[in-house]
């Protein structure tokens, strides 16, 4: 169609080019954004070589080079590099800027190890010895290395046992103790009296003593386990010669990045990514995995979908199939449409006032009076978060479902009615099945929107670090009142509220990348579904 009309309109050409330029810039920005996210996010997992630098002054340091830049305001145009030196427990600083002119020599020693630890972040150095209390198990690099692997595996198993004890028995008995305390408080608040009351009091006291004893036993076992867990240490030598003993149990992973080939690096990156997705956070969220945040996000989105799907579809069916077209329905449709444009924070404010303080406060007063003043439902939690997001996304479901219903040809309805079916039968057997892809698209779009939404959740239920998942083995298994972690909030919180922003940036990038992947994949699914639906039934607009 493009008409390459004559040169009489040079301005037109230039304007066309500029116009094309804006589109090019749009596309460039999108790709650039994706590239920044992907590169920075993936670099969190990629092992960097360890570089040993000998400075002009004689000092030595070992670390990973993170970036290189021109020294600002330097008349000689020198460059400097930023080195992640780790060893926070020795030096205190994670990063150091080094002027390249001060570097006397630079090498990548094969025996340099990077330790990922449960505490204090990474350690860079060389292995010296392996000890149990005063006994030396292995001395020298190679011996220590050989002896380390099996020992480390044993310690990992012990750690798993400790965690299981903590999550299992200890958690159960402390939950039991709390339940008994609340039962005692309920008894105190109740009006009962006399022998019955005395009997229940005695019963509670007995059970309480038993629960406490069980807790004590488990705690004793736990401390014994912990002691053996920390028995062996590995001695390391930092680049400057300082030695440090680290309990083998605290070591998450030993990496010798300079020894790794390409395949090894990929394997390590994948293993780190797997730990990131399945592990729990460490060191106040700055290390470790983000599994609780993934779990919280997914659970909240599914809870929301369970609520929003039936109500949204019901409203759409009413508007499209039952209500008489008129000013009122048109007005309602506009209102619903525009509600999708109302800022999400407004829904958060509503959720706080209505769900948390209103409904939650009433539930607490009626059903959980014994726990007051500590709120049970009268504070932010996953249920309120899901309901708030359900309100936020119900317009999305209504609009998409209406579109789906509108695309069902009238002939199908008329055919069904002509054959004697009632409106309900027509709806259930003919119209809804035909519109199902559209309805599903709406629900998926709503889920994608909910997964990426953070602002309202900051008000109605998210926390920095939720020690317990909203689902666990204790009755009633799904704890709707609990606070939860969320990927989006994790990005905000770790990226903006943590004391050492520079050190956590890669982790935040990785989290953001994961969030974007989840949201984009969900959206892509919805778009593909919608396109298939459109091509099957032909385009039809509503309204």
């Amino acid at each position: 169609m493009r008409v390459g009309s004559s040169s009489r309109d040079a301005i037109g050409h230039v304007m066309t080019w500029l116009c094309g330029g804006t589109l090019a810039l749009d596309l460039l920005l999108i790709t650039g954004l994706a590239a920044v996210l992907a590169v920075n996010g993936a670099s969190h997992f990629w092992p960097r070589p360890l570089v040993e630098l000998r400075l002009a002054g004689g000092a030595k340091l070992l670390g990973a080079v993170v970036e290189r830049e021109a020294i600002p305001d330097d008349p000689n145009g020198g460059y400097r590099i930023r080195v992640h030196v780790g060893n926070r427990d020795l030096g205190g600083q994670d990063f150091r800027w080094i002027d390249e002119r001060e570097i006397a020599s630079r090498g990548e020693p094969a025996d340099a190890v990077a330790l990922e630890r449960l505490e204090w972040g990474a350690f860079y150095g060389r292995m010296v010895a392996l000890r149990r209390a005063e006994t030396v198990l292995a001395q020298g690099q190679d011996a220590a290395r050989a002896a380390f692997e099996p020992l480390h595996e044993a310690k990992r198993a012990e750690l798993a046992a400790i965690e299981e004890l903590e999550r299992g028995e200890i958690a159960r008995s402390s939950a039991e103790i709390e339940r008994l305390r609340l039962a005692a408080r309920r008894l105190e608040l109740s009006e009962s009296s006399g022998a019955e009351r005395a009997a229940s009091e005695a019963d509670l006291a007995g059970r309480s003593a038993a629960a406490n004893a069980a807790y004590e036993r488990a705690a004793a076992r736990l401390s014994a386990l912990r002691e053996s867990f920390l028995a062996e240490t590995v001695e390391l030598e930092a680049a400057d010669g300082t030695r440090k003993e680290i309990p083998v149990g605290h070591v998450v992973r030993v990496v010798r990045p300079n020894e790794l080939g390409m395949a090894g690096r990929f394997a390590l990156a994948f293993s780190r990514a797997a730990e990131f997705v399945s592990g729990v956070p460490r060191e106040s969220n700055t290390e470790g995995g983000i599994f609780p945040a993934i779990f919280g996000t997914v659970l909240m989105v599914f809870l929301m979908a369970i609520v929003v799907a039936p109500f949204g579809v019901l409203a759409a069916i009413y508007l499209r199939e039952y209500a008489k077209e008129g000013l009122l329905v048109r007005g309602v449709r506009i209102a619903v449409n525009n509600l999708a444009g109302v800022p999400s924070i407004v829904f958060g404010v509503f959720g706080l006032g209505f769900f948390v303080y209103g409904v939650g406060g009433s539930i607490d007063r009626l059903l959980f009076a014994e726990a007051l003043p500590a709120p049970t439902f009268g504070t932010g939690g996953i249920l309120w978060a899901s309901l708030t997001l359900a309100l936020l996304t119900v317009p999305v479901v209504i609009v998409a479902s209406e579109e789906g219903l509108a695309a069902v040809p009238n002939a199908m309805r008329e055919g069904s009615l002509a054959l004697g079916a009632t409106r309900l039968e027509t709806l259930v057997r003919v119209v809804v099945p035909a519109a199902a892809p559209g309805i599903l698209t709406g629900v998926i779009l709503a889920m994608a929107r909910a997964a990426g939404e953070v602002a309202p959740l900051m008000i109605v239920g998210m926390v920095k670090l939720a020690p317990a998942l909203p689902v666990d083995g204790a009755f009633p298994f799904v704890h709707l009142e609990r606070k939860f972690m969320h990927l989006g909030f994790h990005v905000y919180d770790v990226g903006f509220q943590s004391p050492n922003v520079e050190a956590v940036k890669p982790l935040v990038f990785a989290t953001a990348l994961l969030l974007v992947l989840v949201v984009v994949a969900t959206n892509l699914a919805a778009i593909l579904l919608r396109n298939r639906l459109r091509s099957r039934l032909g385009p039809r607009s509503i309204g």
Partner: protein
Amino acid sequence: MESNRSARRRRLADRVATAGVAAGGLAVIASILGILAFLLIEVWPLLRAAQVEALPAIPIEGSAAAALTIDEHLTHVATLDPGGAVRVHARDGALVFERSLARDGEAPIVRTAAPPGDSTLAATTADGRIRVVPVAWRASFHDGVREIAPHLGDTITLDMDPGGRPMGAFAARLDPETGDVFAAAQLANGALAIVRRARETSFVTGEVSETTTRTMLAPAPKLTALVADRAGRRLYGAAQEGHLLSWDLRASETPATATADAGDSPITTLALLLGERSLLVGQADGRTSVWFEAGGVLTRVREVAQLPDAVRAIAASPRSRVFLAQDASGNAGLYAATSGRELWSGASPSPAALAAAFSPRGDAVAFSGAGEVAILGIDAPHPEASFASLFLPVWYEGHPKPDLVWQSSGGTDDFEPKLSLTPLLAGTLKGTFYSLALAVPLAVLGAMYTSQFMHPRLQRFVKPSVELMASLPSVVLGFLAGLWLAPRVETAFTGLVLCALVLPLCAVTGGISWSLLPARWRARRAAGSEVFWYAILIGGGLWLSVAASPWIDTALFAGSFPQWLHDAAGLRYDQRNAVVVGIAMGFAVIPIIFAISEDAFSNVPQHLAAGSLALGASRWQTVTRVVLPTASPGIFSAVMVGFGRAVGETMIVLMATGNTPILDWSPFNGFRTLSANVAVEIPEAPAGATLYRTLFLAALLLFALTFVVNTLAELVRQRLRRRFARL
């Protein structure tokens, strides 16, 4: 028969389902509208007048007292009558306690006073002394029932006039925590005597030592009233003919004196507001005004109350900046000093009352009349809020002029909340402006090119990728803007400015070079492929501009643009500023505007463009003269929807600005928007408090703003659709 019954059952099911669907559908829609209603209900108490009701009066013995104080549960009242008798009465009128400040055989009492908020009673004697008695209310619980036991502390006597003459106006304050006493009185010769008694407990021995210091101030005209703050830093006096005097007692031996003119009408009453930085001045013509030092000068900041008769008593609340004023003919009013709002006015329950005092909780005022103490219960939960204080400049304590300030909390209990939504509204509009300034041209022109100059095969790829961009969580955009983009923009700001020049050049270069390619080669490519060539050039241009910025900075701005900006123009450069937000929020808005305007462009009927081309117009002429005007309502609607999105965006502004609520249009500064403000402050706001409701009001404003804008956009779009249907 069987089929008949089945048919009936089916009809019934159908009818039930119809009713059910209607009910369910309407319920969902009603609940959506319920959000608006709920927000309104939460905001409504902000602007409601105070609830005032007369509580049963307490009958008392003796003559009407000029000084009184009441306990926080309103169970007892302590009065000091003109004869110097301190009496404590219980609620039912029983006399619990009595003590005379005029000791036997000594000089009689001349004047009495009850310093506000201190729970003390004070009097001067005819022989030049001040007597102060602290009143304490001790609560104890017996079987869950609270009992209040009144307790009078030891009477403190201060010698003000060694000559032993009767004195004029006086002020006395007792600090209940330290036990320090401050007193000031005008002696018979007009001079002012200041006496401080400080108590110190020795750490070693635990002994209490007292030191008393006396200062004399230069004689002043005859004073009708005198008030001092609790620490004795400031003293205010009212002279006849409306002169107001103030003494700064903080620093030196010779305190600074200042005089201010309050007009012709004599000053009848002085009182201090909560925080003791504002002075309330009641005058004979019925006016009550708020004064404080602005720029070192005691200034009448606002006139709050106008009563019909001379102001006789003013009582200031110890919990908020609310005060009650009563005139000589028994009219009373309740006012909020900061907002200047009248919360209530009406007849006083005790028309001839000599004095009034707030309860410690600020929920009642006691009036001392003859034979009884009348009590007015007060429920004024949100005195700080009024339309004026929320949106217009307010002269806050310590500010040199009326200001628009948002500062919801401070370090102390007597902090004056500053709840102006205007800086936040301005911040919202600032962020929206910068983001739309970037997004509108990029999105609209990009959409125009996509729909008018691009082959459908390429459109199928371009449109979904832009649509996918719309789904990017704003928290990710905010994070990238705050931590990735902001530092880069800071170092390469000049490069960014340079882009405005370089990028169009790149596009033109791209266009020229593309048109120089062999026509046969071009013909094989789908229309619109040149965009990818432009993108490569523009990417290069972008990189060049950024890379060149250090050179430009060195050449023009002495090495650093932010530093130069500060030195040369006096502007501060925040790392997280409006430009960064504009770019990040532009990202969020571009896909929305793009999608809607692309729709508008593609829905312009083909035959219009075809007709124009057939008449010999060029492609560009057709687009600008035919397609663009036809689609313009749709573009308007797209911009409106984008505006709505930008106004309510929370996470990006939260993360990419410094969140400073300042009124400033500079692109180099941060700002705070309504939405970010709600996100930051509402978790800390106690439910039902003024701040909480003000944040609900902010949410309501956002709701209303976006709803109106979106409805407008939707109506325009529907009209457009009908017009296209006719074409």
